[in-house]
């Protein structure tokens, strides 16, 4: 009677408190459910999409080599999402991050920020924490 619906996880979610994230690490805890890497650097916190901008495979974080690497055609990205090797023409996309009222990080996957369009300067694309 009902169509076969795939219930996908909501596009926006709360990702805990900024203090849950260590400075300088690539955090995997939301990768499997939402496809998001959360990275906290000295400048701020941002949410990187794990979809390769070449043809859409999912990239892996290689801690030893300090880069994201795509298993499909070998594109590589720095920790900040900038592409530096392989065929991909542009950096990984970032999702909107903000602080919810209760102080948790709110990630909205429906809003994307692309570096090549200059959108990474947008205050919603990173969190100053």
């Amino acid at each position, binding site marked *: 009677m009902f169509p076969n619906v795939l219930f996908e996880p909501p596009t926006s979610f709360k990702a805990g408190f900024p203090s849950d994230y260590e400075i300088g690490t690539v955090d995997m805890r939301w990768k499997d459910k939402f496809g998001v890497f959360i990275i906290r650097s000295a400048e701020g916190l941002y949410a990187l999409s794990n979809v390769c901008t070449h043809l859409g*495979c999912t990239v*892996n974080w290689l801690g030893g*080599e300090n880069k994201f*690497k*795509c*298993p499909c*055609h070998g594109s590589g990205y720095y920790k900040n999402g900038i592409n530096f*090797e392989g065929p991909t*023409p542009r950096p990984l996309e970032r999702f909107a991050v903000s602080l919810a009222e209760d102080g948790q990080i709110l990630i909205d996957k429906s809003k994307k920020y692309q570096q*090549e369009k200059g959108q990474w300067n947008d205050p919603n694309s990173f969190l100053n924490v």
Partner: protein
Amino acid sequence: MIEAVKQAINSFSSPVTIFSASLAMFALFVLFPRQITSPWCTVPILLLVLAFFAVGLTDEHFVKIVTAPDNVPIVAMIFIAGYFTWYAMRKACLNDARLERGEPTFEKTETDEKVLVFPYLIYIEFVVALVYAIGLVLWSILLKAPLEEPANPTVAPNPSKAPWYFLGLQEMLVYFDPWIAGVLFPTLIIIGLCAIPYIDRDPQPAGFYCYKQRRPMVIVFLFGYWILWILLILVGTFLRGPNWNFFGPFEVWDVHKVVPLVNVNLSDFIFIKGLGWGLPKQWFLREAPGILLCLLYFMVPTTVAAKTWLKKLVEKLGPVRYSVLMILLLSMLALPIKMYLRWAFNLKYIVAIPEFFFNI
């Protein structure tokens, strides 16, 4: 001893060396087909290939890759495609020799009359179809389909490989933007194959195997088939490992192998390294040199050749068919050219406009 040979093969292997060596072998083949397809040459070559596999089978890693159920057809393809190429070329060379001596071709000695498609050809095709059907049934019983765990959108196997017949395209994607390698080139391949009978309408050397009278066509076809299709499939299947890094045939697929692959766009070369100005803000200024280069690439050889050594061809084909032919040929050549540019200069894109996803 065997270990040393394997080591040597591994350290020799890289995308450039494999591709260049294959090009050299291809050149030898089309230059000296008569000698190479003669039994004196063919048998040693066949033994060499078999020896390679025999040596390979002593290597655990090699065995794992070559006998993986999805890779078996590719091993078979080496022999099947090799056999058919050899067969056609051998017949063509023998026919050429006969024609030189003023004798009729093989096909003429079989029958001088035209025969009907039905039943003659259909009958043969039917038998072949039966044999293939039996072969497929046996194959699917003997080798289990390599099914994996249910797909999970957040986990990609490493390396992620396309089905074997698409691996050539996947290998192409290493050098091109998805639009070009995934859409434009496949379309051009199909259009190009459809265009062959309209471009090459010479009735003279039709109906029998020959090489001398249609050397350019045979070379172009074999180049596209062997170098740009089969070779890329072989590289994609056997020599690409985790993270799509290149591995020698006897090299263990190490997930942590680090290969420096930093790539630079043409605009970076020109405006940053060459002129020292920094990249212009507007994309059309930034990419103007690349766009110009691409236009020149298609226009200069076409017009220059039309005025000089291809004059006769232009007269024979007319301007439209000639231009179509040249565009197809030049796009075909663009693939190896781009590959060599990547290997030599780490050139990523000649035209790179990520603003609206257009990269060449």
